[in-house]
């Protein structure tokens, strides 16, 4: 059942493993559930039931022209969770990049459905133009290789090979990214996203782990979150913005420590 109907919209989902439920939310434009599928997800699934889904307009979920704002993304997450067996009660929620902002927003919108939150290198609204560009930026093969050589000799060659590429693969990815950027409201939605509800965050009673890359453009957000949230832990990993691809094993190590602790 990779395609499910969630409140009338088709979402592509995958479930791996068994155990306490955790849902993973990918970032925008270059993200989809494959962000997790070849690294973070199977590692986490050794001890948990892991739900992956493609956000609207991404991966194999139904195309969408609009609805790339946090309120809609958070509602989509609620609809997906309600439609998947074993995920309708309180779950752990982890998101990367924009998906991390969705995780926090969902914690504010539906705290009764959330146990703990993991924020992986997420920006916080209002997003400035540079942040929007960083969230949607495609990474070329050379940049990806530099990341590997700088930091992660164990970096998955596959992540590099599959996340970027020239030729047919590069062209297909570029086509999809172009469609999202030019054929949908994604940029406008991000630019008009209102500031996150800081008072709400200050009252959020759920534990939050904030994992940021040492060279990420978003790394300063970790301290903002730590200063605002009542129960936040911050971990910095050596790397850039694409932590789930750059160092999946390191990400899983700190996430398991947090979720098992």
């Amino acid at each position: 059942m990779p395609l499910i109907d969630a409140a009338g919209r088709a979402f592509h989902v995958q479930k791996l493993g068994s155990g306490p439920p955790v849902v993973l939310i990918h970032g925008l434009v270059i993200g989809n559930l494959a962000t997790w599928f070849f690294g973070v997800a199977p590692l986490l699934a050794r001890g948990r039931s892991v739900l992956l889904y493609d956000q609207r307009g991404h991966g194999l979920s139904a195309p969408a022209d609009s609805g790339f704002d946090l309120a809609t993304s958070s509602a989509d997450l609620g609809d997906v969770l309600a439609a998947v067996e074993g995920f309708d009660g309180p779950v752990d929620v982890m998101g990367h990049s924009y998906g991390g902002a969705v995780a926090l927003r969902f914690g504010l919108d539906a705290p009764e459905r959330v146990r703990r939150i993991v924020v992986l290198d997420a920006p916080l609204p209002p997003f400035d133009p540079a942040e929007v560009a960083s969230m949607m930026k495609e990474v070329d093969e050379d940049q990806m290789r530099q990341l590997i050589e700088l930091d992660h000799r164990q970096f998955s060659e596959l992540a590099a090979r599959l996340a970027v590429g020239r030729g047919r693969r590069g062209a297909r990815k570029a086509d999809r990214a172009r469609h999202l950027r030019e054929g949908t409201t994604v940029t406008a939605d991000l630019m008009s996203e209102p500031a996150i509800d800081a008072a709400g965050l200050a009252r959020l009673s759920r534990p939050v782990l904030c994992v940021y890359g040492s060279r990420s453009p978003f790394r300063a957000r970790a301290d903002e979150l730590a200063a605002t949230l009542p129960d936040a832990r911050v971990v910095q990993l050596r790397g850039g913005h694409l932590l789930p691809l750059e160092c999946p094993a390191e990400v899983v190590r700190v996430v398991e420590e947090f979720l098992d602790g």
Partner: protein
Amino acid sequence: MSETLEVIRGVIEDVVGPEWSVDKPITMETSFGSDLELESIEFVALAEKLQARYEKVDFVRWLSEKELEEIIELKVGDVVTYIDTCR
């Protein structure tokens, strides 16, 4: 000609799409990464379609448990062999 190979060819064409048709014939030696240039989400789609076609094959799990380096080198023939062993 293996029947499984025929099925996999059909699935690959379905996943990659006609506008990106593969210019070389798909054989047991064709590699998913370097020859077909499958993207990661297309790997997932391929796994799901094979799983739907062969109920006994837990292809999604098989793929997700592989070492990343193995997946890069994965050839059509590896998948044919795996499916034929499961049946």
